[in-house]
């Protein structure tokens, strides 16, 4: 029943009739700034199809999700966007900014759209927060000029309130998965979070309240199979989660930028400097790209305990260096803490399904 609430706005792929959409790829991009500019933030989650033309700009040995985004831009799949914000969250994203500009500037692709850039430090201490505030300020000025709008402190505060409410509601929804038998699957949860990142926030909040009303009172007896945490590279679609859950396990929490990281913390609402408050919150998101490995492990360990997981699946996209370098360290930490870990390395879409299935099956049997 509750899934019906997601349907009104469809998959969120249609352009909103009254407000333009600004696309963004990374959760380190404050949605509040897009809302402050009177636009709808639209998270680009990938197409999940093979890449052909993007390889003319960027090497094949590159983060597949970035190649996928570029392919979408070249193919005109994001032509409904007024612009896109690319953040400096990895080597690949940094270069995507270049390639996307070149691709959209090609005359046969219609009127050029604006590609904005946001520099994001890998640290969250005072100096890095200040540097990020300056970068956010520069982005705002650029957006104001390009979109012919003014982003006011009041507009930002209003957007902060709206986005915080979404975060609080999603946090409540996520906490339901701590139950022995969660009222929604990992796949369903992924769908809700994706939907929340692509639709009007007021509408999302209204619908989330209805969903919570239903699920918080739902009676779910019994228990699920092995309770897993999924961590690692961004997942554009719930394909891997479905595969895991088809095999009898349940993803009860996910440390993914397309999952629980999206609503990990709130922005301080009564700060006299909303931009600084945004800078602090968006640098506090414990993604793997941040240089504070100790904080990251602390976050992951806490998550594993709170959600009572029995094992961890670490997913990395091929050539996604941040995760490829992080994996051995995090695996060792988890193993020392008593959590078995399974590594899955794959393309942006599941090509080697049979192999992954066999490995996940063996892993869940071991945990079972």
């Amino acid at each position, binding site marked *: 029943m509750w899934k019906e609430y997601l349907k009104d706005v469809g998959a969120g792929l249609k352009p909103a009739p009254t407000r333009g959409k600004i696309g963004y790829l990374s959760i380190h991009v404050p949605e509040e700034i897009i809302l402050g500019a009177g636009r709808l933030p639209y998270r680009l989650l990938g197409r999940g199809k093979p890449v052909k033309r993007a390889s*003319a*700009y*960027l*090497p094949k*040995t*590159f*983060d597949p999700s970035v190649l996928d985004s570029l392919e979408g831009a070249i193919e005109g799949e994001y032509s409904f966007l007024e612009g896109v914000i690319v953040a*400096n969250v*990895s*080597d*690949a994203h*940094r*270069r995507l*900014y*270049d*390639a996307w*500009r*070149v691709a959209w500037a090609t005359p046969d692709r219609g009127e050029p759209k604006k590609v904005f*850039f946001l*520099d994001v*430090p*890998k*640290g969250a201490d005072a*100096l*890095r927060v*200040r*540097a990020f505030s*300056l*970068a956010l300020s*520069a982005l705002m000025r650029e957006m104001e000029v390009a979109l012919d709008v003014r982003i006011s402190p009041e507009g930002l505060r209003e957007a902060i309130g709206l986005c915080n409410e979404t975060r609080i509601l999603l946090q409540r929804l996520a906490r339901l998965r701590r139950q022995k038998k969660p009222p929604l699957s990992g796949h369903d949860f992924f769908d809700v979070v994706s939907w929340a990142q692509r639709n009007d926030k007021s509408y999302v909040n209204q619908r989330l309240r209805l969903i919570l009303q239903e699920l918080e009172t739902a009676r779910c007896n019994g228990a699920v199979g092995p309770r897993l945490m999924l961590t690692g590279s961004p997942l554009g679609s719930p394909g891997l989660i479905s595969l895991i859950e088809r095999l009898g396990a349940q993803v009860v929490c996910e440390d993914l930028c397309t999952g629980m990281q999206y609503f990990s913390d709130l922005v301080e609402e009564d700060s006299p400097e909303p931009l600084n408050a945004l800078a602090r919150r968006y640098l506090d998101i414990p993604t*793997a*790209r941040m*240089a*504070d*490995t*100790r904080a990251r492990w602390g976050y992951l360990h806490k998550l594993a305990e709170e959600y009572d997981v029995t094992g961890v699946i670490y997913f*990395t996209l*091929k*050539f996604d*260096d*941040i995760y*490829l*370098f*992080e*994996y*051995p*360290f995090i*695996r060792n930490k988890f193993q020392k803490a008593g959590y078995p870990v399974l*590594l899955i*390395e794959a393309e942006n879409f599941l090509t080697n399904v049979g192999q992954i299935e066999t490995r996940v099956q063996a892993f869940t049997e071991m945990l079972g």
Partner: protein
Amino acid sequence: MTIVEDQRKRQREFFTLQFQKRLKRPRGYSPLKSSQARERAMFRLLLESFREGSSVVWKSTFVPSEIIYSLGAIPLYVESFSAVASAVDICPPMLDASERCGYSRDSCTFLRAVLGASHKDILPRPDALVSTSYYCDGDPKIFDIFAEEYKKPHFYLHVPYAAEAGWAVDALAEQLEEVAIELAKVMGKPFNRERLSEIIQSSNEARRYLLKANELRRHVPSPMLGCEAIDYIASITQLWGSPELVRISRLLCEELEERIEKGVAAVEPEQFRFLWCHLRPYYNDEVFNYLEGHHKAVVAFESVNLITWKEMDPGKPFKSLAEKLLANPAIGPYERMTREVAKMVKDYQIDGIIWMSPWGCRHFNSMAQLVKDGLRREMDVPFYILDLECIDKRNYSKEQVRTRLDAFIEVLAGKRG
């Protein structure tokens, strides 16, 4: 891991022996005295970092050595350790060790070799670690992991992407000052600003000589082989701020002037002039020997020797160092690099560009096609993207590389008509 001095001593002896073997290896050319001095200085630095009582700061590529020297510590550019290890042929076991730990073979071999060396505990131990956001994602990540493993502090510098924005210099200068003060605390001594100013002066002096050397290398025919020039990596060497670099760079200028005066060419007769972008294979000289020896196609200049920063102001050390870092054309949009490459092509009368593209280097690989296309809009210069590994000789195929280089030389010859 408790390492006693006896083991450290054995490691020093091991590296001394490897260094001696390296110096005695047969070469296809007679190296300049300055090149030999540079090589000795680098090995001395490495051996010093093994010595009991030495303060060692691990640094990633663009962390200014000047700050570390000013604290009386040794800057250990750990990726250069991988290059040294590759040159003395001890890299494969280091890479194997990293792979056994779970590090992917698709990632950067410089970093993987260091990870493997750390696992085998053959690295000089750090007192502190400093990384920057440039070039790549791997550095801050593994530096933080090392910091956890060695229980030492890690300081991270965010180098603004908007290098030309008004606020970038101040934002970076503040961080550099913070790092200097924090490192001084680690070393147990107050930070000495005057000492840093002296080091900046020394760095300036070396810069003047190396700029002059770069100018001398515009001479046709080229007075220096790319094979030995590329090892100076003037843009990133950890010798910046050391008196050795002043001596080496002065000697280099003298030797180049003498060669030009006497009409000595690096390659005779010089057939083509190449610009080499990125680093080199460190496990052997075959590629350069083949180009410069067999084809008489000299590598007239290398992007890693480019000096883009202006003279620093010793009275404003942090602001100056920030400007130095931000002058790097690899920071910011690809157009900055394209602009510099185009300038090098003109300055050095380049016939063709070889853009070395190692499998695991996302930063440099990803720029290749964009720079190539950008240049094409400006000038007609053949541009070849050469897939070649810097560190891991297990992925090297001599004949394959030769075939590709032959084909590129044919293109150049055809263009000349």
